[in-house]
């Protein structure tokens, strides 16, 4: 029981980490706390569903199409809205991200209605047994995909020129401009990447559960992950994802019976509160220092 819960926690945690990565990217590049990340996860899953079921082509064609569409959505959001919001009060920016969230949820309802859809199985079938314990294959695949993508992005930011430029804009916008880097382009790119990882996360969640509007609720669940890790730390997002995922899963198993269902969702917020009391900048976040 413990092992099974642990593995489920790791798998879900890796998806959390992926979605949190998207939030961290946008925050690092442009100091926008993106409350629409959950809605992006949801719309990404719906877009993928529409493309996969609508285009009569194999998955290796349809999935990349869905990915490109998600990236375009990110670019459009940045280009049409956030490009004009530099220097605007943080609370106003947060409200705008909430607005985007409502807009995306509303449009999704308008197009697909409020029904549950069962997502076509896009992850290969694989049954797994570990010492007599059965492990659901979607968990394994979610974990593998999340890890591969996280490693890919780490390498991208460390070694590629574009990745280096994106880090430069996140680190010091003034200096990066003086070196000829167009900050808007890099911020656009971070929105595109953020939407792509949200879509991948959404597809995996839709594979684990069902495809419905409730998917956007993941945004609220991922928020503790981001705060726990520190808003501007990619490694923090990854570790935060695992911690929240595992604790949620274990508490569902061990405290669920005592305190009723859905306790796992509360646990992550209790952890969030405790962390914020002790470490207000998260486990890996950058502390603002004031020099006198």
């Amino acid at each position, binding site marked *: 029981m413990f092992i099974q819960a642990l593995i489920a926690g790791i798998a879900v945690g890796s998806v959390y980490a992926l979605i949190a990565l998207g939030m961290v990217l946008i925050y690092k590049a442009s100091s926008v706390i993106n409350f629409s990340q959950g809605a992006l996860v949801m719309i990404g899953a719906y877009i993928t569903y529409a493309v996969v079921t609508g285009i009569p082509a194999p998955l290796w064609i349809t999935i990349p199409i869905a990915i490109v569409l998600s990236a375009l959505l990110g670019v459009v959001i940045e280009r049409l809205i956030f490009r004009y919001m530099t220097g605007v009060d943080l609370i106003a920016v947060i409200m705008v991200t909430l607005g985007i969230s409502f807009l995306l949820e509303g449009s999704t309802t308008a197009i697909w209605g409020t029904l549950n859809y069962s997502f076509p199985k896009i992850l290969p079938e694989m049954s797994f047994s570990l010492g007599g314990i059965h492990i659901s294959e979607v968990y394994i695949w979610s974990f593998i995909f999340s890890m591969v993508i996280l490693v890919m992005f780490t390498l991208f930011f460390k*070694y590629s020129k574009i990745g280096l430029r994106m880090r*430069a804009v996140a680190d010091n916008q003034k200096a*990066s*401009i003086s070196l000829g880097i167009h900050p808007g382009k890099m911020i656009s790119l971070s929105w595109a990447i953020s939407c792509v990882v949200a879509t991948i996360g959404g597809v995996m969640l839709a594979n684990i559960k069902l495809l419905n509007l409730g998917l956007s609720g993941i945004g609220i669940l991922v928020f503790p992950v981001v705060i726990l890790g520190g808003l501007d730390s990619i490694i923090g997002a990854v570790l935060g994802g695992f911690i929240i995922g595992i604790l949620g899963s274990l508490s569902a198993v061990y405290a669920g019976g005592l305190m009723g269902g859905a306790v796992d969702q509360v646990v992550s917020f209790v952890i969030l509160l405790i962390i914020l009391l002790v470490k207000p900048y998260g486990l890996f976040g950058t502390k603002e220092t004031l020099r006198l």
Partner: protein
Amino acid sequence: MSETLLKVENIHLTFGGLKAIDGISLDVCNDELVSLIGPNGAGKTSTINCICKFYDIDSGQIFFNGENITRLKPHQVARHRISRSFQNLDLFKGMTVLENIKLGAHINIRSGILSDLLYYGKTRKEERELEDFIVEKIFSLFGLSKYRNKHVGSLPYGLQKKIDIARALAARPKLLILDEPVAGMNSDETKEITEDIQKIREADISILLIEHDMDLVMNISDRIYVINFGENIADGTPQEVTANSDVINIYLGKSFEN
């Protein structure tokens, strides 16, 4: 007299009614080291920020290499081979020394996003050439080799100042703008930077220098512009400027009279 490289013509800049620059003009010729001096708040850094397009000027014109660059976007300035260092150390603190300087040199290489993502062909070759250039030219000039993979934020102030200049130089500029390169440095460090600046001059790079260290300014400048309250006060060779009574009254003080 060699050709004019940078020509700033009668520029004006206001911040909400406050006149920061009120008609400054200056020239920098090829291979020349020109200094811009004046009391704090005179508009020196504002002038640089106008040249680099961080501020949009209200009126006036700026030419570089014969081209009108008055209406460029700030990120386009570097493409015209103008580089700058910063007064307050705007380095990428979370990155290594090599990464900082690489970013300075990036302006000179172009390859598509796709080839960059896949890290093949031209990208790989360029990357190797770039690292060779940085290690051979920039690192050896500034003595930075041993700090190559150190995080910039952890290094001492004097070294960070050097890295800032090295990063600007890695872009292979025609004009290098240095904003108070020795501010806050001790005499040894100042001497080192002075030597570095002289080495940069030997590479046929024009320099526009802002500095309060008058020994440094008088020693290495070809010409000096003095400004105050956003206006030109005087200009000329170090000898001419030190002999100017307005300049002595406003800025240099009586000790420079002899």
